């Protein structure tokens, strides 16, 4: 249900209006950092920085969570290894392309775009929740002039927390639905693509905590219960961190699917 706003003064309403714009700005800015392969800068610019939040920060994907900012940095390193592995065929066969950090991403393309934002700021003003749809493309080239190009589809769920007067990403989950190959019939995809069929699956890495956060087979079965709604204060069960209800079946959730 759309927010009711009956409990706020005009000044508070104006502050909350800008809170929502800032939060959208952060998640969109994240898209540009990711698309530019600037993942570490994404973390240092947009994610929590205060010591009290660093251990509880988390990044999730379909298969689990990286818990703690150090672990999220480790995931960045895992991703760099993938980029190096994609660079190697080029540097092995083309003299002019060095196997060097400066050439990471050569022959590739990785646009993540966000749309359809849904943001709720907690009534107490200290946290916020967001959902966006994430549509992208993803290309991995080869020195023989071919490329595997995909159109990618997913969602992003995120908790934000206020540090001073700045909003920061605290927990974020990249939910991945599909990577559909350009020029091919989507029906030829297996029902549960693995890493060999889907480059995003190949990039999941090794989470700190393994957990089925999202099963592409059943899609948005729990989306109505997991999407952000009006709320008073952060409760980790209804957030997007590793101890949340995300990924749990209805009979595993305290109180069922009520919030």
């Amino acid at each position: 249900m759309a927010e009711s706003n009956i409990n706020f003064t005009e000044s508070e309403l104006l502050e909350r209006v800008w809170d929502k714009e800032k939060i959208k700005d952060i998640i969109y800015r994240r898209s540009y950092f990711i698309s530019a392969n600037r993942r570490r800068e994404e973390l240092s610019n947009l994610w929590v920085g205060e010591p009290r939040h660093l251990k509880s920060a988390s990044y999730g994907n379909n298969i689990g969570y990286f818990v703690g900012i150090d672990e999220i940095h480790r995931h960045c390193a895992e991703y760099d290894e993938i980029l190096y592995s994609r660079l190697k065929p080029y540097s092995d066969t083309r003299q002019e392309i060095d196997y060097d950090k400066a050439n990471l991403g050569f022959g590739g393309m990785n646009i993540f775009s966000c749309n359809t934002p849904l943001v709720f700021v907690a009534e107490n003003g200290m946290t916020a929740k967001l959902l966006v749809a994430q549509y992208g493309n993803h290309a991995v080239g080869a020195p023989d002039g071919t490329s595997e190009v995909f159109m990618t589809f997913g969602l992003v769920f995120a908790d934000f927390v206020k540090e001073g007067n700045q909003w920061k990403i605290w927990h974020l989950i990249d939910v991945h639905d599909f990577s559909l190959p350009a020029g091919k019939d989507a029906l030829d995809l297996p029902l549960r693509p693995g890493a060999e069929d889907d480059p995003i699956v190949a990039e999941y890495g090794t989470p700190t905590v393994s957990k089925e956060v999202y099963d592409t087979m059943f899609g948005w079965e729990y989306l109505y219960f997991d999407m952000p709604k009006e709320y008073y204060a952060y409760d980790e069960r209804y957030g997007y961190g590793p101890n949340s209800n995300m990924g749990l079946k209805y009979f595993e959730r305290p109180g069922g699917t009520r919030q």
Partner: protein
Amino acid sequence: MELANKSEEYLLDAWEAQRAIKNLMGKMSYNYIVKKFQEIFSGLWSSRADVCLGVNDGYYNGASAVAGYYDGLYELNALISKLMQKAIPSVLEDKTADEIYGTGTMDYKPVECELIEVAQDGGTAKGLWVLRGSHSQLTPAGPVGYWEWGWFAADFIKEDGKWKIWHLLYLDDVCGVCGTDWVTAPKDLPEMEVFEPIKGYKLPEPNVPVKLRELYSPMRCFTPPPRMPEPYESFSQTFSYGIAEGETENG
């Protein structure tokens, strides 16, 4: 935007500015669908002489060049409609040129993922969007659909209380034929004599030819998105999405 310790009046002005800019870009998308290209220039662009439109192959620098680009799109679409009228006379032959203008192709340029910074002095603004589109082009074989992925990056200026485009970068990473892998040349389709005239039409070229961006290919160096806007006080203290200093019509 830096909003700490700002008055409520300032916060409202800044919020309304960024909403107006989002609306402006939404109207630009709409104008592409209904083929109102000349209205894009006359309605959405600044009246300044130093407006500038950058595309992959260079800049249309100055009002006359930018207007010429949109005039070119109008003329192209008028030609397409005329050819389609000849190709499908049973439906279109009784219609006037005005009635059929825009028939034949469709151009969706949805913009999303916006970053907008309004200057502290309130006189200018900057924005960056992802373009995730699809359009059809008339080829000698008939209309063919393309996926289009790219970026719009713009400087805006306030004129007579309204926000207008001052400099615009319209840069593509992908203009790939739908139903292909985007990098292999699509197979030739059988040409039709009725569409022969489309071969002779070319949009006006940029008057400052310079490679601003390559389309994606497996041999392209990694090419990040255009630079993100950052908070700024006045335009002199930020970078421009317009033609770079030193780049002239002589290249």
